[in-house]
């Protein structure tokens, strides 16, 4: 791959910035000699055309949602509406400084306030903050809220967080960052929380539980009310990871299931794009007893004016420089306006129908360890594939067919897992094509396993050597490396 630094730098490109219209300053005089940069950063000077071509060429090595189905389980890679991109770029939003006075930013503050009200209604909870900028950031805030509320209740000895063994890795990591220890609760043979195993752990050292609803197998905890009641009865709090909200949005609310804290992933459920890894937005909703602890500033409305409110002495503090990812919030807001109540119901209806259709078809070819009604996703296993063909091989072979692989090797409780989430924006034809390809690959594993084990052949690169990357880390451009002699 040619990098920026492989391009020859030229002199006299310029032309982006005007000539200086004030007297020039002698840098060494105004800054002092020791503060002026001695060596320029090694960034090539290129023409705009060279820059445009370099990054256009790079973009063509990527696969995006506009290229085709992107069935990454737990990631909700739905179509990202173009309208949302355009409204987020309006100068009236993009050009606003976060320190500008509230009376000059009523449109932006009003949007944030309205969006948090809509999310509050969707969640059925007491209040929402838009400050967290990612799902894991919402989890972290949730753990901070747990910690603060337990401190206030005089129960700092509650230091354990319970987690199902199917949890996302961010859950235990977030709990640990807030100073909690983690206890895993095993799943039962139906793929849900084992109530007896849960009850056995519930004592006066438990701060609470983190649940993904539905869980990462795509299964709704039928006993959700028993689980949250048991935790509450034992003096604990309930955190709901909202990564999988797409499966019940518009028809059920975490607030009615016993959640104390719930995070939204606006970049999953509310269609804002993933950006190759971010930025996202991870709004957090809380139950009434936790409201006072929400991060400052709050965005409050009174008599038609919206303002920032810093006066909340019980607050955990702040988790972001300003008000969260505002331009992501703009996109999510436009999405909700377009959908309305009926659209929300159609989202969950089609997400769940698509997943169940694919599950029913594909379980004939790949084992389905938890064979039951799923929500928006399901998890197959690649363990029965012949000729030492693995789930990784299947994923790489999908690439040869021009399709993005599903999430693999997660959740950890399924051996050789293939975690498939088609999302509601795929249509029947796309689902059938995806299923046909997976069926073909299973046949290839039998008849021509080298084809599968050697995949991908048609991608920009073949399988990459991860061991070499780990053993001999080259993490920035090796300017001093000798050019290879050919």
């Amino acid at each position, binding site marked *: 791959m040619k*990098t920026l*630094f492989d391009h020859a730098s030229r002199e006299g490109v310029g032309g982006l*910035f005007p000539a200086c219209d*004030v*007297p*020039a300053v002698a840098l060494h005089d105004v800054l002092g000699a020791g503060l002026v940069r001695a060596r320029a*950063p*090694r960034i090539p000077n290129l023409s*705009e055309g060279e820059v445009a071509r370099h990054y256009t060429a*790079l*973009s063509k*090595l*990527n696969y995006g*949602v*506009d290229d085709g189905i992107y069935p990454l389980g737990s990631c909700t890679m739905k179509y*990202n509406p173009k309208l949302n991109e355009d*409204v987020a*770029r309006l*100068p009236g*939003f*993009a050009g606003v*400084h*976060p*320190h500008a*006075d509230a009376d*000059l930013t*009523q*449109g932006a503050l009003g949007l944030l306030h309205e969006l948090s009200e809509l999310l509050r209604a*969707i969640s059925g909870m007491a209040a929402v903050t838009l400050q967290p900028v*990612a799902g*894991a950031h919402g*989890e972290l805030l949730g753990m901070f809220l747990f910690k603060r509320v337990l401190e206030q209740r005089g129960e700092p000895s509650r230091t354990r967080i319970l987690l199902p063994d199917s949890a996302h*890795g*961010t859950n235990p*990591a*977030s709990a640990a960052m807030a*100073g909690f220890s983690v206890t895993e609760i095993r799943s039962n043979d139906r793929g849900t929380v084992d109530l007896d195993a849960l009850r056995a752990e519930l004592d006066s050292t438990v701060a609470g539980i983190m649940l993904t609803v539905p869980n990462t197998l795509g299964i*709704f905890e039928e006993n*959700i009310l028993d689980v949250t009641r048991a935790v509450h009865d034992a003096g604990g709090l309930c955190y709901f990871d909202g990564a999988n909200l797409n499966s019940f949005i518009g*028809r059920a609310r975490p607030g009615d299931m016993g959640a104390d804290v719930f995070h939204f992933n606006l970049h999953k459920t509310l269609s804002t794009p*993933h950006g*190759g890894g*971010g*930025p996202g937005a991870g709004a957090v909703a809380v139950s009434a007893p936790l409201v006072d602890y929400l991060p400052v500033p709050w965005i409050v409305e009174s008599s038609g004016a919206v303002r920032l409110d810093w006066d909340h002495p019980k607050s955990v*503090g702040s988790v972001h420089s*300003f008000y969260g990812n*505002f331009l992501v919030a703009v996109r999510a807001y436009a999405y909700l306006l377009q959908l309305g*109540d009926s659209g929300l119901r159609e989202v969950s209806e089609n997400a*769940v*129908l698509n997943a169940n259709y694919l599950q*029913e078809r594909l379980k004939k070819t790949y084992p389905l360890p938890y064979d039951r009604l799923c929500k928006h996703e399901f998890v197959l296993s690649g363990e029965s594939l012949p000729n030492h063909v693995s789930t990784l091989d299947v994923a790489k072979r999908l690439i040869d067919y021009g399709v*993005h692989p599903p999430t693999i090797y997660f959740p950890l409780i399924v051996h050789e897992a293939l975690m498939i989430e088609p999302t509601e924006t795929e*249509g029947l034809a796309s689902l059938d094509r995806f299923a046909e390809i997976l069926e073909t690959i299973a046949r290839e594993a039998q008849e021509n396993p080298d084809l599968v084990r050697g995949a991908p052949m048609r991608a920009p690169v*073949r399988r*990459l*050597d991860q061991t070499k*990357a780990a053993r001999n880390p*080259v993490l*920035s*451009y090796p300017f001093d490396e000798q050019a290879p002699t050919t």
Partner: protein
Amino acid sequence: MRYLSNAASDRDRMLNAIGRHDVEELFSDIPAEVLAKYEPIGLEPKSELEVFDAVRRLADGNPAAGLVSLLGGGIYDHYVPRVVAHILGRSEFYTAYTPYQPEISQGTLTAMFEFQTLVCELTGMEIANASMYDGATALAEAVLMADRIRGRGRIAMATNVLPQFRRVVATYAWAAGIELVEVPFDASGRCAWDRVPHDVSGVVVQSPNAFGVIESLAGRKAALGDTLLVVATYPLALGLLEPPGAFEADIVVGEGQSLGLPMGFGGPLLGLFATKMEFLRQLPGRIAGRTVDADGKPGFTMAAQTREQHIRRERATSNICTNSALCALAATVYLASVGADGLHQVAELCCAKAHYLADAVRKTKGMKLAFDAPFFNEFVVETKEPARAVQRRLADAGFLVEDPAELEAQGVRNALRLAVTEQRSRDELDRAVSALGGKR
């Protein structure tokens, strides 16, 4: 609904294929009493045309976007070359997921590798990650990392670090059980190094700091010994300023908004995070590395993943997963567009224009600079009359200036912070001086 692709007949076929009669059956695993409690949110669906109009009206409700900005404090009104938005608008970039499948993510991974290299070049450090959420969370993670490395349970932080950074650091440190020791600033607005305690894991300073003042970092690391030196910086200023790496900083973080991101009412932003190679195992966040494919052809993949949450879970260096990848791409394309020469030029423009304004302020009756120390493009003015009255006068003349309350909370009374970027013309600066009460 126009974002769906299933026709009604498709849905019937699918229901039939899975042996269901009614789509509501698909939700029979949700407790009936939960379903019964559901209440609609009270929104009628709208057409695209109506939504665009409604949202545009909200955008029009922000007069701040059209005024002349002298606002700073970590976020600046810099010019973004047009090519940046065009590259970011390519859906192969913005609709892609995290590059867990490297063979079809070489675009994202190559850009990550370039970004890491650029951050190293700017900061003078050995390694950089692929981004954090913003400068404030980057600094909070730096504090956690410094204490993981040295383990003394205490971190010293200068009170002239930006308030939004200090707030977030305080929250993260409280939760992690790390004590924060405040280090005051001296009469020049710089960190009072003689007040730094000895038994801390790290010392946090910002340069330029919340007053725009450039800290003097020469010789500090040697005096600190094995206490880690953590520096928050302003990357565009590093086009001119000696980077923290040149002063042997151990961890360098920064807010990357100045590198091609819109101000966007404060988000999304871009957290920069760089350190020394010896601390790689303690680094939070993703990082791309170079490797080869099965044919020996060079390519990029994610590296050192055993630090991360999806593998190490509760023992990970951080919980971060989603970061600011697209913002990092913006910074990469920005720096590629301006090049080393353009970066120097834009930094020099900011510096010259800020000094032009500061010189005029110095000559203005009833005004003086609060600190006699070198600055880059931002400085604090002390006013004889109430600062709020001066702010109001500037606002009436069409200038955006910060509420003096924030500086006051930091211990600088009757003062305004003014920031100047390359976008401010001499004419605008002259008008600002008139509004301040000067002669020009």
